[in-house]
């Protein structure tokens, strides 16, 4: 019995339970995909599902990793870290990251692209979303700068 299961493991690469669980889960997923694809345009859905993975893994992640690399070159805690024991980089990173996420999530409203839909639904036009995003970004940057200032003062007190 044990040898048989060891043989299975050698050939398959994991336990029979692993195989069973994957077959059941993939069958459920296949059924759900069937329902999705029979209810809509197949080429469009293929583009949606593959495009979103390619877009995230091969465009979005390299893009933000590249921007972060640039930021690290500019703000890396090199000599400045010897003068002040609190690195500044994350106080720039965090507000910009949050602001960028807001911009992505609310892009149809901020850009005004959703205006005709929005007007048909709500009876109002999209206004102030760009301004609000800008103000939130400003508030995040100021809040982060304030926290940085507090941390620097605390660090000076500790080292003085």
């Amino acid at each position, binding site marked *: 019995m044990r040898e048989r299961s060891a043989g299975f493991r050698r050939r398959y690469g994991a336990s029979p339970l692993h195989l069973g669980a*994957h077959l059941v*889960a993939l069958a459920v997923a296949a059924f759900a995909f069937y*329902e999705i694809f029979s209810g809509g345009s197949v080429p469009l859905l293929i583009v949606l599902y593959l495009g*979103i993975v390619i877009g995230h893994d091969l465009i979005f992640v*390299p893009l933000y990793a590249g921007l972060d690399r640039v930021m690290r070159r500019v703000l890396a805690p090199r000599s400045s870290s010897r003068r002040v024991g609190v690195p500044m*980089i994350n106080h720039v990173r965090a507000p910009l990251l949050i602001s960028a996420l807001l911009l992505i999530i*609310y892009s149809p409203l901020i850009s005004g692209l959703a205006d005709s839909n929005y007007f048909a639904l709500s009876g109002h036009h999209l206004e102030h979303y760009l301004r609000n995003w800008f103000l*939130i970004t400003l508030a995040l940057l100021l809040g982060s700068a304030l926290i940085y200032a507090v941390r620097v003062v605390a660090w000076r007190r500790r080292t003085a």
Partner: protein
Amino acid sequence: MSATKSPGQDVSAPGRESRETADRSSRRSDHPSPSAPEFWRSPLRGPWLTSFLGTLLIPAVTLMLLTGFISHWAYYPEGTVAGRDLPVLFHIPASWPTWSYAVNQGTHVTLGLMTLPFVLAKLWSVMPKLFQRPVVSSFANALERISLLALVASVLVEFATGILNVDDYFGGPLDFNTVHYYGAWVFGTLFVLHACVKLPTVRRAYRTRGVLKPLLQGLPQTAPEPPVAGGLAPTNPAAPTISRRGLLAMVGGASLTMFAVEAGQSIGGPFRRLALLAPRGRVFGTGPNDFPVTHTAATAQITPAMTGPGWRLTAVGEQTVSLTREELLAMEQATHTITITCTEGWSTTQRWTGVRLADLARLVNAPKGAMLGALSIESDHGASFVESQFMDDRALLALRVNGADLSPDHGYPARVIVPNVPGTHNTKLVGELRFEAA
């Protein structure tokens, strides 16, 4: 700036190119490809970080699936979406506080937005796995990778469709309900599978590193996890620029910001104005009819003639009666404060006055166990309700709101208001109520 580095490469400051890489085959280490372990340099990546992010996602995803299914059953009370479906397992009883569906839907939408930063961080933490060599190492690994591809695709599609829908920007040839609902089957199933498969890895990470201990380490104490062949920890780590708790604070901060700019449209009242980016976070006045609306009378192409003195409500049961608005106003009126909630997550609580649907059901001798179909004078608009929903004491054919006649945008001459159903089922501009045996 070296132009030869591929995008996505995690490197620290240029002066820090580690000396030991020069000893190895120099071509490979100078220009590693993403499939080479030394390409991935973030010192934070490792089994602990991924385990911790994954652990945080378990309650969030569970709650999103739960609220999503409850909303689905509220939307299709009589059965199912077009395709084959599970039976309806739960209805929010109409007798529950009228804000119950608002809590469900506000949680689904706001929690979804709050979870997105954690999903993106989780995906970032496992990026090296995407480029693993060999592409598959065994039959078991092939199955795992196929299920992971579908898991990642479905989580991204769920979030993208959900976000576009709450931004009032989902349309075109795809049906949101089908894609988002069956997409949740794919995502939910594969999420459970993934959590089970990775359970031993998570337990090992927590046993060796501690569950919360890495959160005690500030930047000076932040060290990479020991690399294992084919693992997540970097073989060639850069110097850290942020601690693990700093990363989690950043992701959590993003999450809290989502709450701040979104939740007010679900909570309502004075909080609505705080929802600075939410689609229904705006306040346009204090009049009785100045609360938010979905689908205006102009969009529905309703003309004054359609809602003028010629308008009649036809109620059909075992008898059929036809009533003018004056006749409806002459019937016994009930007033209730009822929260209505859009499937897109926003809510508004108003004081509605009108005729109880139960009274109308009695008037026309509705058959026992009937379903109610409400039809709008706008073509193709309507909703159906089960008996426990329309027989609730607070279920109304509303004629007035906050002491004033309904405005055209809010459904003049009469609209259905039933507690704890998706707002879109509160049919406006009602022309006909059909009480029919199910």
